[in-house]
Structures are given as C-alpha cells and as structure tokens.
C-alpha cells in the first residue's frame, strides 16, 4: 500500500480549509467559503445565463483560482497548451457533474466544507460521491479513456483564463451590465479583493499539490494511494476546527443546515452523478479549474460545460431547494420532478459514455 504523502498536500488541505472558514467569516454564505459549483452557478446568473434572482454574483474566487494556477504553472514551467481529448463529451460530462452537484447543493469541495460544519446531509452526499467514484473506477479498469490530448497553439491555453479575467474586470468597471442578487446566497460575499487574493493563493497551492476531491477516493480504490485523500481529510479537519474555534459549530445534525436539504436519496444520487462524472473527466470541478489554468483546453471546455449545466439547472428547475421553516413548520426541501428526471438521465448518459469509451484490450 502506498503511504507516501506529499507535504504540499497537507499544507494545501489546511490552507483551503482555513480559506473557506475565513471567506465565510468575511461574508460568504455559511458552509460555502468555497464551492466551485455554486460559484460557477452564481457567475452564470450574473451574466444572465439564468434568472434565478438569489444566485447571481460574479464570484472573484473563480478567476482567482484559475489565475493562481496559471501563474504557478507558468513559473514552474508546467504550463502547456493542450487539447483534443473528446471535448464535446467533456462538455456534456461537465454539465451533468454540475447538475448533480446542484441537486445536492454543492460541489465535492463544499461537501467537505459542509461536513466540517456539522451537516450530516453532506455525509450522505459523501457516500453517494464515493459510490459514483467506485462505478467510475470499474470503467477505468475496463479501459475507459477519452483518448489523447495534443499540443495546441499557446493562445488556446489562455482562452478561459483571459475570458474570466475580462469578465471579472468588466463586472467591476461596468457593473450595470451584470446582475447581482439582492437577497439569498448570491447577495452574501466576502469583499472582492479578499476573495480574489485568497483564491489566487489557493489556486497556486492546488496547482502545486494536485489537490482533487474525486482523485483522493479514486486513488485509494485503484492504487491504495492515500496522497490525494490526505488533502481531503485536512480540509475537513481544518474547517471543523475553524468552525469550533469561531463558535460556529453546533454539533452534527441533518436539520436546519445552511443552504442544504435533507432529501437523502437525492443528496446521495446527486453526488453519485458528480463523482462518476468527475472520475471520467479525470478530476473534480476544482481540479478542472486548475487544469484550465495550466493551459488545458479540454478542462476549459469542461468548465464551460459546467457553466451551461448551472444555467440549465436553474432555467429548468433541476437544482435542489434548501430546507426551510414556514409559519413555524420545518419543510424538507430537495428537488422536484424535473430534477429527479435530470439525475436519472444523467446517470444513463454517464453509463452510455462509460461503455462507449472503453477500449478493447
């Protein structure tokens, strides 16, 4: 069994956990210091790709993560423009990973942050995520591959970072072009400068360490390798300790959790979809952002797929609704029929992609 742990991974896990606690303290929604799915969804809303009023804000964390990774990769000589590995399939996978995450209400990173906040629904999500990853590894062993990528023009590698930076700057200098939530999660945010600075640092560390939520569980299953999962564990422990130290920890519970629902079956299946899709893509949503920063055009297309998936999730009422209290009565949220159908279709599409891309030995 592989027991070698990269010290960068431990450091990154602690830094990401601390950053999540800090950004929440500075204004981000509870248990949402970082959430790639939520933040891409907010950006999709901000540029009017969907019109869900509570989730529209141009989150500086996204361009910050991509730029942090890009700068580190350029400095270390690892930046390389490459693309061509089944981009259309990756777009669809990105969209369904996003839909699965928004059914659960959080990407794999937010799942861990929610766990550290005492949200037991996130542990159900973790079980689903692990199940999805396990299914994905079965196909990896059977020869699943999205084929090779190839070196492309350097300009291709700068498309997504450039686009994100341009839109972010535009959102600052011409905010009237964008939409910003006046209530709900989109209205809650840390100061933009702080969000950007923290995300730059996290992006740099994530690039250096190769942090990946899906890769952690995948590598344990495939190779008995505990390196990546050590980052996952450190994020959980740091967020738990941070919440406890700041007096935000009220024990573990399924009820009244921030921006979360307790419809367990759909928490499980949403994250099954996200986990399976992430394994087929070669990394979780955070990892896709980091790879896009390193010049990977396939990951850039995946990120665009995730943004499209977020728009679909809200335009077609697929995303989960948080539990709420109305007239003193606790109402379990979850997803409607559209969301349930989308998860089932997503699982079927992933099954088809998994089978169709298995190479014969």
């Amino acid at each position, binding site marked *: 069994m592989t027991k070698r742990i990269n010290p960068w991974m431990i450091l990154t896990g602690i830094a990401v956990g601390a950053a999540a606690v800090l950004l929440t303290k500075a204004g981000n929604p509870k248990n949402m210091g970082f959430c790639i799915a939520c933040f891409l969804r907010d950006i999709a809303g901000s540029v009017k790709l969907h019109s869900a009023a509570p989730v529209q804000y141009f989150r500086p964390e996204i361009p910050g993560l991509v730029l942090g990774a890009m700068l580190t990769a350029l400095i270390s000589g690892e930046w390389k423009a490459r693309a061509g590995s089944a981009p259309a399939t990756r777009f669809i996978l990105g969209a369904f990973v996003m839909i699965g995450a928004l059914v659960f209400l959080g990407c794999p990173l937010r799942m861990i942050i929610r766990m550290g906040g005492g949200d037991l629904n996130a542990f159900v999500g973790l079980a689903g995520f692990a199940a999805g990853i396990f299914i994905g590894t079965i196909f990896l062993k059977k020869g699943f591959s999205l084929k090779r990528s190839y070196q492309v023009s350097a300009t291709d590698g700068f498309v997504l970072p450039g686009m994100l930076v341009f839109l972010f700057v535009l959102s600052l200098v011409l905010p009237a072009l964008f939409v910003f939530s006046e209530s709900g999660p989109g209205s809650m945010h840390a100061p933009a400068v702080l969000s950007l600075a923290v995300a730059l640092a996290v992006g740099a560390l994530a690039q250096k360490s190769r942090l990946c939520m899906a890769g952690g569980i995948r590598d344990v299953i495939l190779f008995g390798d505990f390196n990546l999962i050590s980052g996952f564990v450190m994020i959980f422990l740091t967020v738990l300790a941070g919440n406890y130290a700041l007096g935000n920890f009220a024990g573990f519970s399924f009820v009244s959790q921030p921006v979360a629902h307790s419809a367990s079956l759909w928490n499980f299946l949403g994250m099954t979809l996200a986990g399976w899709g992430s394994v087929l893509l*070669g990394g979780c949503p955070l990892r896709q952002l980091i790879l896009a920063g390193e010049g990977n055009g396939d990951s850039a297309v995946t990120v665009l797929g995730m943004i499209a998936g977020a728009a679909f999730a809200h335009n077609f009422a697929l995303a989960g609704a948080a539990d709420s209290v109305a007239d003193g009565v606790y109402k379990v949220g979850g997803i409607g029929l559209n969301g349930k159908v989308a998860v089932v279709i997503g699982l079927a599409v992933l099954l088809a992609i998994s089978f169709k891309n298995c190479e014969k030995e």
Partner: protein
Amino acid sequence: MIDARGLSCPMPVVMVQKEVKKSDPSELEVLVDSMVCVENITRFANTHGFAVETKEAGGEYTLRLVKR
C-alpha cells in the same frame, strides 16, 4: 514501452499497473508528457518495488522502471 503521452490522469498509472500485473516485468519504460504523470507513476512504482529513473527531453519524460 508504454506510450501514455496526452492521456489524462489516472490513465497512465492504470496502464502501468495493468502491465505490472500482467507480465511482472523486471524493467519497463513509460513515455509521458506531464509532471503530474511523472509524479504519479513514480509514487506507484516506488511502492511496488521499482526504482525510477526519469529523463526529460522537449517537454516529454521517459521513465525507466527497474525492479529493485
């Protein structure tokens, strides 16, 4: 020689793992084009009884795995 250039993580390691299981080689050469693959294959190889020697040329890496 395993040519894993352009393949995304973790496929190069899966290919090495399959080859090691199938033929129990005393030596194995692997060609990759990213540092992530170099690190992952090296970690796998070191914990499966192989010493690894890496050579870089033009952004591509040749890993020579030799059974200890």
